[in-house]
């Protein structure tokens, strides 16, 4: 794994790479909220096939500089497109999104159509507008700090307590640290996701697209995504029931490598 920086639309964008960046069509991975490229640390080595793998830190996450205003999915996509432009070779990249990353993948393809080949969306958060508004209110607010740290209990539970049976403690802790590293605005990516006009943007996508639906919580939303994107191919991986990028990594990576090789 190597770290890299490029100059992006809001300052430096950090990304990590696995494999040889000059060899094959790059697979660019876009993280779920509220995490950085750290979310892909387990699965990325399994995704390296005859292509390199890249995972991006959105502005304000990981080591990427934050945007001056509250970010939108459009901004994350602009950062992703800036990274793809700097990659060696002139061939378009394949995109892999998970949760919020699905929305960023679609938006990147719409913003930079010639830089993108195939869009793979895993567990797409395509909620009805009323539900998005509800989730925005519930999950999109800044975290509150207090001297006794009680303000982070919810985040601790989200990353650690509720996941311990699915992934090792060290990995859960790594994700918690990644989450709080973004500071008070760590939920900005949730806010961006729940304000994204999925219906309109999904309908505009013309790229080759695969939607992967697991049983880990967004199955129905992923089926709806596949229906909203006319040309999308639906792949059901219902054997994966939790911790998609960790416990489900071997199965998911195998499926993705197979479809990208086809």
């Amino acid at each position: 794994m190597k770290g890299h920086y490029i100059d992006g639309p809001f300052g430096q964008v950090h990304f990590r790479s696995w494999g040889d960046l000059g060899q094959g069509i790059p697979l660019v991975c876009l993280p779920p909220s509220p995490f950085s490229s750290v979310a892909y640390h387990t699965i990325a080595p399994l995704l390296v096939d005859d292509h390199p793998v890249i995972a991006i830190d959105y502005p304000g996450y990981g080591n990427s500089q934050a945007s001056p205003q509250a970010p939108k999915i459009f901004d994350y996509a602009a950062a992703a497109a800036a990274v793809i432009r700097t990659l060696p070779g002139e061939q378009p990249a394949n995109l892999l999104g998970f949760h919020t990353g699905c929305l960023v993948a679609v938006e990147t393809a719409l913003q930079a159509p010639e830089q993108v080949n195939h869009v793979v969306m895993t567990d797409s958060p395509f909620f009805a507008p009323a539900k998005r508004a509800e989730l925005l209110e519930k999950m999109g607010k800044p975290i509150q700090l207090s001297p006794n740290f009680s303000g982070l209990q919810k985040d601790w539970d989200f990353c650690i307590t509720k996941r311990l049976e699915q992934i090792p403690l060290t990995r859960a802790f790594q994700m918690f640290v990644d989450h709080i590293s973004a500071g008070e605005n760590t939920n900005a990516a949730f806010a961006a996701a729940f304000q994204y006009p999925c219906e309109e943007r999904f309908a505009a996508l013309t790229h080759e697209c695969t939607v992967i639906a697991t049983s880990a919580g967004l199955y129905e939303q992923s089926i709806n995504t596949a229906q909203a994107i006319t040309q999308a191919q639906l792949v059901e991986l219902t054997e994966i029931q939790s911790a998609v990028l960790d416990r489900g990594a071997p199965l998911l990576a195998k499926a993705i490598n197979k479809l990208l090789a086809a």
Partner: protein
Amino acid sequence: MKKFKRQFAPGKYGQMHYRVKHAEKPEKRPLICLHMFPQSGRNFEDFLNHYPDNRTVIAPDFPGYGESDCPAEQIDATAYAQSIWELIDALNLLQDEGAIDLFGIHAGAKLATEVARLRPAQVKVIVLSSAAILYPEELADLKKAFDPVPLDKDGTRLMRLWDLLVRNQGPGQTLEMLATSLAEILRSGENYEWGHYAVYEFNSHFPEILAGLEHPIALMNPKDDLYQMTPRTEAYLRNGRMYDFSDWGHGFMEVHPESAARTVDQLLDNPLNFAQPEN
């Protein structure tokens, strides 16, 4: 205001991560800033942004901290210091002046003296902040305070480190600043105290090494947890002087970035005759 950039360079243990602010037209030697443990070059972000545009200023992450790759095994103070020289050489920082200046805080201050000991002719001026000489019982207390905490689902490590940060909270340090420091500590993973181990071991050599340095050295003593111990260091300075900064504490580079940057720049110009502003 010109902002710092973050970069990677190849190093012995993998990638070495650093923050750098390049001067448009450098008039002075490059300055290398060395962080405390178990944190990272993040300590210097605001400081770098406010540093006068008269020299290139670099704040590396020691191996295993921040974004720098971790060595496979624990390394000693000399190896940490060598990693800094590897970066200096990789970035070709000696090409114009043939030497650099050093600024280190806490453990980074002690390691700055080891950096200077390794290649003394290539270091000109040193500024140390909170560079304490510790009595055995104080070192034992420090070891106890920073004893690594195993991970558990109750968050014991998190809470103990947070309590430590809150207990040492400097004047003007906000909870957001402390949370950023905490995240920086936690991201070092399971080897987060390797740096402290190296400095504990180095502690017994520190007075002798310091006494052997002929460089002009300015010793800053802000009112943090080492405020009482740092004055003992002054006796070992062959060519140096201590300055009291009792209005500043932990986090002074974040709380007073402009003033801190200007002060360090002036200390580097006049390490023995710095005119401290009246409070």
